[in-house]
């Protein structure tokens, strides 16, 4: 174990913040079934409803009853796509428009609908990861059932123009979903301004516990339960309430909202510091993602000539935790689908590292990472069969 320990993988997940942890310790005793009519049940239910209001407030939803608790982002996304499956079977609108850079749970849900015979379009993105709006406009029409575009990308941090995407979809009468798992708590998220029908969020990305998330469903938007059973969550999502997780989610959401401006300033300054130091100390690097419309905490860099998993593990030995778009780390032969979609060649995608910073990242940590990185890259490039310079030029 290295003496230093620097966690820079906040987009993968975040640590539980102390305020949430303390509250959850007390909440361990909120054992009652929140559906029970008796006093302890009503008390538990009150805690759940408080959390619902806190989560609703974070995404600027005026009616807390539009927030439905789930087990996390994957379940929320699956619920939307299974609803579309039912609607597409019955109605005339059958087409789904999504993007090539979605999280696997959206991509695979969309592919499932495709396998079931419904038309699905995976929109391509530009070099910076923003969707091709020209193509999007052309794909819209009276046959479109759902448009699903992620609010911010987990790997490169690019933020999409959800308000404009929704406006165009609504002109065509389509439903709109956004997977805002990475956006919530990092940038302002407003279901009012975005005007979406469905919005997915996850608690463990905002310093809360894992295993809990939510789906915002605009009042009146169609929904079909993924998990059938009791009457919890107005029949939309059955299963006894996860008191502990939901209470933790509420607190995490409340704090994320209160600290949003402070957070953006903090991680933004540090992310830019890391980016500038890397550019100054390592030749032939490429910064991936949009220069302006990007999450303030995310920095994705390609180091051509050096393989990503090797970089990751040398950093790991130095106590630094990051992630990579390299195939080797994923167990498949293909590098990151997101980086490939931005037009990056596999030789640049395999050598990419994602640094995702968080509220506990310090300047000292950034400087430590910036100091550890150059000799690692130099060493790997020296033993490489591939020239860094040529790879960049060819790109």
């Amino acid at each position, binding site marked *: 174990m290295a003496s230093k320990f620097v966690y820079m993988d906040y987009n993968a997940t975040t640590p539980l913040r102390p305020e949430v942890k303390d509250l959850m310790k007390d909440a361990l005793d909120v054992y009652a079934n929140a559906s029970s009519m008796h006093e302890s049940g009503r008390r538990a239910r009150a805690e759940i409803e408080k959390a619902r209001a806190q989560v609703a407030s974070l995404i600027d939803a005026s009616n807390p009853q539009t927030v439905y608790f789930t087990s996390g982002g994957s379940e929320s996304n699956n619920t939307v796509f299974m609803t579309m499956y039912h609607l597409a079977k019955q109605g005339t609108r059958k087409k789904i428009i999504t993007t090539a850079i979605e999280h696997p749970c959206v991509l695979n849900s969309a592919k499932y609908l495709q396998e079931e015979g419904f038309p699905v379009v995976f929109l391509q993105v530009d070099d910076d990861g923003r969707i091709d709006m020209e193509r999007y406009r052309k794909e819209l029409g009276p046959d479109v059932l759902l448009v699903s575009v992620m609010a911010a990308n987990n790997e490169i941090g690019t933020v999409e123009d959800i308000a404009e995407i929704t406006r165009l979809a609504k002109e065509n009468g389509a439903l709109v979903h956004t997977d805002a798992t990475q956006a919530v708590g990092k940038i302002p998220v407003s279901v009012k301004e975005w005007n979406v029908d469905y919005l997915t969020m996850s608690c463990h990305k905002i310093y809360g516990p894992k295993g809990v998330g939510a789906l915002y469903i605009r009042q009146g938007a169609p929904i079909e339960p993924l998990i059938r059973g009791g009457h919890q969550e107005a029949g939309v999502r059955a299963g006894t309430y996860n008191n502990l997780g939901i209470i933790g989610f509420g607190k995490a959401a409340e704090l994320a909202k209160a600290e949003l401006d402070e957070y953006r300033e903090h991680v933004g300054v540090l992310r830019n510091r890391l980016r500038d130091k890397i550019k100054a100390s390592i030749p032939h690097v490429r910064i991936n993602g949009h220069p302006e419309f990007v999450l303030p905490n995310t920095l994705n860099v390609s180091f051509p*000539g*050096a*393989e*990503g*998993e*090797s970089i990751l*593990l*040398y950093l*790991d*030995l130095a106590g630094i935790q990051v992630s990579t778009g*390299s*195939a*080797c*780390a994923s*167990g498949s*032969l293909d*590098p990151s689908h997101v980086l490939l979609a931005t037009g990056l*060649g*596999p*030789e640049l995608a*395999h050598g990419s590292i994602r640094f995702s910073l968080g509220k506990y990242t310090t300047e000292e940590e950034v400087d430590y990472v910036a100091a550890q990185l150059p000799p690692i890259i130099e060493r790997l490039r*020296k*033993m*490489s*069969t*591939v020239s860094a310079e040529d790879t960049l030029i060819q790109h």
Partner: protein
Amino acid sequence: MDAFQWLYSDVVKDHFTNPRNVYSPDEPFEADADGIVGNIKCGDQMMFMLKIENDVIKDVRWKTYGCASAIASTSMLSESIKDMNIREAYTIKPADIAAKLGGLPENKIHCSVLGDKALRAAIDKYLEKTGRAGAFKGEDAVVICTCLNITDKDIEEAVKAGARDWHQLQEATKIGTVCGGCKVKAEELLHEFSHIYS
């Protein structure tokens, strides 16, 4: 070996952090033969350079664009073949190296298969140079299709010649046309070799 421990097995960590016999552009190395396999598009590529005297490997250097398993296993391989006869070196298999490293997790085995192939490519070149092209062919072969006595080497050659799917492989080798019992194993090899020779 669990997922947390594998990198930190002392042998793997040692070879990953201090890889042996890595080629350095700062140090001149006059190789008698070299071999390169793999494709950067698939994320890994390996090159071996050999100094050979009287069919004995006297010195070795290697380069890779590859992950930790590739680096550690190639480093280990490069140590094992010094002062070894090229005929013996030709028969080294990834499993031998993985065993010397104390084992690799299942999902990391595919990362360690390039080293021995680059080594064989270098030896093949040397044999060619010394007028003995193809002399060791078949020596390290394992029979995959027992009905027709078709080996992994035959599959490898077919892939090198362009076979990329089961149908093309059958056309090239007639593999699996009797009982078909070898199909799963053969397709695994087809996939592996396609990755290396694409």
